[in-house]
């Protein structure tokens, strides 16, 4: 009998949406070559994008710290300290970066280590954090509305996002790649032409999938993509290698293939209303880079040997 008509219905809808986005994406790509095409941007992409591309370098967009991290009176950091805890929006399903460890009931990972370092700099106690697990889609709204103080969520600094929120300096360099089952013959996104490839709704990985003429299947979480891959409902998952590594670690019957398709510099997201907090966080990150904590976290979560941390570049 027909297994799961509901799910096929949902898929069909997604595929439909995706093919609609494909057309839009194609138009956007043609209008603004060289810039990442955003299918969601219906407003005259060519003009706005070109202007943004001229003045925007995602890797060197953040604010320069003024010395070591200091909680100055009247600053946002002082407000957080008065509240008694930092509120951080994090991922709970991305293995090794931000995930709820079912055994301890704690959220752990590389992203989480960054947040704990910030809390430590404010309170002298890395434990004074309230973690709010959020989906990819929720990241920008939560930062903009102030529901969270900071977001550490495998989040790529992009020029589009920089128009709405601020980012810290780059704390991790990722690149989009492709995860397939061990027995797959696919070697890159191009060889998945016309097949179903999974990504989350709020990620920027979907655009690249559409550019390579694969069929995009959207789900809320990266682990949902792995469920679909295991059940044979999609041919591949494509996103940042950092996330894919975490998925591969949960299923030894998968492998990463293909070249690095994009540069995905990760930053911690902060509201544009708190530039002093951006500088503060950058100071904290600078400490982590130099005192070996960054390397220690890298070795714990991603693997040894740790590379050199991404060098901080600032735009202002």
């Amino acid at each position, binding site marked *: *009998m027909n*297994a*799961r008509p*509901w*799910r096929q219905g949902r898929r069909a809808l997604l595929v439909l949406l995706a093919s609609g986005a494909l057309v839009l994406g194609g138009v956007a790509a043609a209008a603004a070559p060289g810039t990442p095409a955003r299918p969601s941007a219906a407003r005259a992409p060519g003009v706005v994008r070109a202007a943004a591309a001229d003045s925007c370098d995602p890797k060197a967009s953040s604010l320069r710290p003024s010395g070591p991290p200091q909680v100055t009176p009247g600053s946002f950091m002082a407000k957080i300290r008065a509240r008694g*805890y930092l*509120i951080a*929006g994090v991922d*709970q*399903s*991305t*293995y090794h970066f931000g*995930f*709820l*460890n*079912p*055994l*301890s*009931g704690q959220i752990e990972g590389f992203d989480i280590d960054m947040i704990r370092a910030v809390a430590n700099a404010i309170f002298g106690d890395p434990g004074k*954090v*309230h*973690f*709010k*697990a*959020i*989906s990819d*889609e*929720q990241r920008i709204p*939560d930062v903009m509305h102030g529901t969270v103080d900071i977001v550490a969520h495998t989040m790529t600094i992009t020029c589009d996002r920089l128009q709405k929120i601020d980012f810290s300096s780059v704390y991790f360099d990722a690149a989009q790649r492709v995860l397939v089952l061990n027995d797959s013959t696919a070697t890159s996104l191009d060889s998945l032409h016309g097949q179903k490839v999974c990504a989350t709704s709020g990620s920027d990985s979907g655009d690249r999938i559409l550019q390579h003429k694969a069929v995009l299947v959207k789900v*809320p*979480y990266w*682990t*949902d993509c*792995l*469920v679909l891959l295991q059940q044979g409902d999609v041919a591949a998952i494509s996103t940042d290698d950092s996330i894919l590594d975490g*998925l591969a670690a*949960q*299923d030894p019957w998968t492998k990463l293939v293909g070249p690095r398709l994009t540069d995905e510099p990760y930053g911690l997201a902060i509201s544009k209303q708190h530039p002093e907090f951006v500088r503060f966080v950058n100071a904290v990150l600078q400490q982590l880079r130099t005192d070996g904590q960054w390397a220690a976290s890298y070795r714990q979560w991603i693997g040894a040997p740790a590379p050199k941390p991404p060098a901080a570049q600032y735009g202002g």
Partner: protein
Amino acid sequence: MTTSVSVPPGPETSAPAEHSARWRSRLDGAATPTRLRLLLALLVLLSLGWGVLAALTADQHASAAADVVAVSEPLSLDAEQIFTKLSDADATAASAFLAGGLEPAQARQRYQADITEAAIRIQAASALVGSSAARTQLPGHLARQASGTSTAVGDDLATLSGQLPVYTGEVGTARADNRLGLPLGAAYLREASTLLRETLLPAARDINTRESALLTSASAQATGLPLLVVTVVVGLGIGYVFFRSGRWLARQTHRVVNYGLLAAALVGLVSLVWLAGAFAVGRGDLLHAQQQGSGPAQAFARAEVAALQAHADESLTLIDNSGDDAYQQDYVAQQKRLGPGPGTLLAQVQAPAGKPGSDAVAEARAWYQAHAALRAKDNAGSHADAVQSALTGDAATRFASLSATLSDGVDAHQAVFASSARNGRDAFTGLAVGMIVASLVMVVGCAWGLSRRLAEYR
């Protein structure tokens, strides 16, 4: 007088007034033995006609009542149990995941018991629908409704038995991944929960709705008045014919009483009283079964299911904890359905049930408060406190007492229904056969009484 009574057999009643007068004059003019033979033939026909009509009436009510007890009730109970057990499995699996570390043995056992019970019920319902021998003898329109229901219910049961292993497989994968400490487990749990809510529960709900409708129809058939009223009026008409015949015979033969005829009339009267009495008792029991049994039981069951789904939502919100508040929205929707308030499920529970109903309302309010406190904690970032409340704290205990009250309500009213409906069915036991026997006794009585008079003319 006699013409106003609609008795098909017998020339005396079917003919218009002048016609019957002609008949009577012809009877009067005929020789007495001929008239006696004609009277005998009439009375025998009336007795047999009564037997057929009364037995048919008895059988219509008895078979509908039997369907209520043998098929509709067990099936709607099965459907209700499948629905409740699956909802409970969903809620239990979700809260077991919340526990962190190893799932509590208790939660695992409860989940297993739910799945086992649901599987048993699915099998039992399938067997019942597959055989449904009891339904072939239902009266016409009811039989058509029953066969339509059986087809749809058969499809639903196929969905349930096909998808239940898929669901348990996904929960099993979730559990295995969880044990390895992988976040993938939570994704499989979400997948399983979606399958349960979007495929399994709707199928169970569909069975419940259809069988409840059939139960109502069968009950209405068993308790319906029109056929019985017609039968009783006909019976009284036949009684009147016997009375007039006795009078006429007394005049003709100059004997006060014809014992054969008297015996036949008395047997006829007894059968009429039996039929009416059995119907009154059976109808009373079946209505009681409906009003105090299946009706409130359904209301309690619906409330219980809404509460269970809201409880699963509470856990899934904490597991998912993603800012995407779909599960919390569903909780709010379920809370709205549950009530209390006009038109809500708890209002229906409250109406007939008295104390358990008002207990449930108070417990639901307490649970909503605990839930609001839990959400406030979670939203303020105290996830661990919120989980604590959902697992063993305030929210957990409040929900447990609400769930227990509703579940007890279902059981208590189900028991009322079962015993009353069985009593109702038993009231019709042997009724149809009794009517046929009575009519044969009446025939014998008439024959015996009149043949003795006829013998006098030899």
